[in-house]
């Protein structure tokens, strides 16, 4: 059973970018004001930023990445690794990370990789890049995580549309033999893959005219096979059972007291019902569990990085912190990551 212990890797900085187009729940086409009020109160997502159709996740990530490199004073020539975590890349092929290498003016020696791992995307990238940096042969990695998830679904799917927001985030990692290990517990349950999926558009079911035929599933759920779907109860059942076990295991294995030894628990901002439940189940101190879903919605793999940027940026900048992060999403995959940070660069969230 793999338990990842990544040595010699420091987090140097983080930031996020959103499209400058905030949308309140009541502004969504399928909600009445009353429905929007109920949604806000129960699901907790009152606002989300939605990118126009000509803006991709890579564009938002590009802004975050460029700003972060400038803020850190990193020469572009010094970036050895560029990872792009997204399920909404520019094209089916080639990898968007290669396009971003060119757009950002990174050297041709840059190792690039796309990581289409959904809501665990950030954690996957830290694991992959962290292990690459650990030996010291590569020194610097830029991780870009973002999605335009709204466009993955059907605009008339009330069960999915209001949950997501669009964003691009950037995280900088650097080889540093003086810092504490990054510890990650990763898990996969592929048998649950149908809970979160896009049925048509891959090579199992290529796009055909049938892919565009919409079906009304009731309760405001209208979608076609080309659209991403969420099986709400399956996802909920998964999210409230598997991740807490992983968090608990991490606390026990690392000998951490949740009330004393952890500064913040950063939980993937799926929705308030799920996050509240994890907090309750694990009996986490509520003041140590920041939320930003009310402002940004579910940002997929960028969720943890946006929490760092929007909610605890001042503290990340000024003092060492112990963070326990929990991600879960498509695959189905889930993980818990222990991150002991040193003061880093945190840039304000940009709206473009």
């Amino acid at each position, binding site marked *: 059973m793999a338990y990842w212990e990544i040595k010699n890797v420091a987090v140097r900085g983080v930031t996020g970018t959103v499209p400058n187009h905030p949308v309140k729940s009541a502004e969504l086409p399928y909600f009445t004001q009353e429905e929007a009020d109920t949604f806000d109160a*129960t699901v907790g997502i009152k606002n989300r930023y939605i990118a126009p159709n000509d803006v991709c996740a890579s564009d938002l990530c590009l802004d975050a990445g460029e700003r972060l490199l400038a803020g850190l004073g990193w020469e572009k020539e010094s970036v050895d690794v560029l990872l792009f975590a997204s399920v909404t890349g520019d094209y089916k092929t080639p990898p968007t990370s290669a396009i971003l290498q060119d757009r950002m003016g990174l050297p041709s020696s840059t190792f690039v990789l796309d990581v289409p791992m959904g809501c665990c995307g950030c954690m996957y990238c830290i694991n992959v890049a962290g292990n690459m940096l650990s030996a010291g042969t590569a020194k610097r990695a830029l991780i870009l995580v973002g999605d335009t998830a709204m466009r993955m679904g059907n605009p008339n799917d009330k*069960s999915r549309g209001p949950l997501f927001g669009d964003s691009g985030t950037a995280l900088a990692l650097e080889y540093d033999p003086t810092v504490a290990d990054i510890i990650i517990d990763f898990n996969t349950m592929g048998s649950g893959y149908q809970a979160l999926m896009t049925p048509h558009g891959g090579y199992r079911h290529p796009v055909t005219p049938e892919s565009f035929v919409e079906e009304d599933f009731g*309760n405001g759920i209208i979608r076609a096979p080309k659209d991403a779907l969420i099986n709400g*109860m399956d996802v*909920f*059942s998964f999210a409230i*059972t598997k991740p807490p076990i992983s968090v608990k295991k991490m606390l026990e294995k690392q000998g951490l007291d949740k009330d004393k030894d952890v500064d913040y628990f950063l939980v993937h901002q799926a929705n308030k*019902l799920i996050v509240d439940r994890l907090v*309750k189940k694990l009996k986490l101190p509520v003041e140590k569990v920041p939320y930003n879903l009310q402002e940004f919605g579910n940002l997929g793999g960028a969720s943890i990085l946006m929490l760092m940027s929007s909610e605890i940026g001042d503290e990340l900048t000024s003092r060492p912190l112990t963070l326990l992060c929990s991600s879960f999403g498509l695959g189905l995959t889930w993980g818990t990551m222990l991150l002991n940070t040193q003061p880093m660069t945190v840039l304000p969230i940009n709206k473009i």
Partner: protein
Amino acid sequence: MTNLEKLNKIFCEVFSVEESALNNNFDKCNVEGWDSVRQLSLTSSVEDEFDIMLDAEDILEFTSYDNAKAVLAKYDIAL
């Protein structure tokens, strides 16, 4: 307020219905708008009201008014 009255109040608030609508046919198949969000909202309110923590499988079972009563019985909530 009795436990049954508390449960009925929660159903009425979550589904915006009168108490008289709560019967054997009040279930996921027959009630307009009974989606996963409503179901989770329902179970969250029940947990808060009765100070219990439902298991995941019990939350999934909360698909009708009758089932809700059966699940609460498992947690020794007398109705």
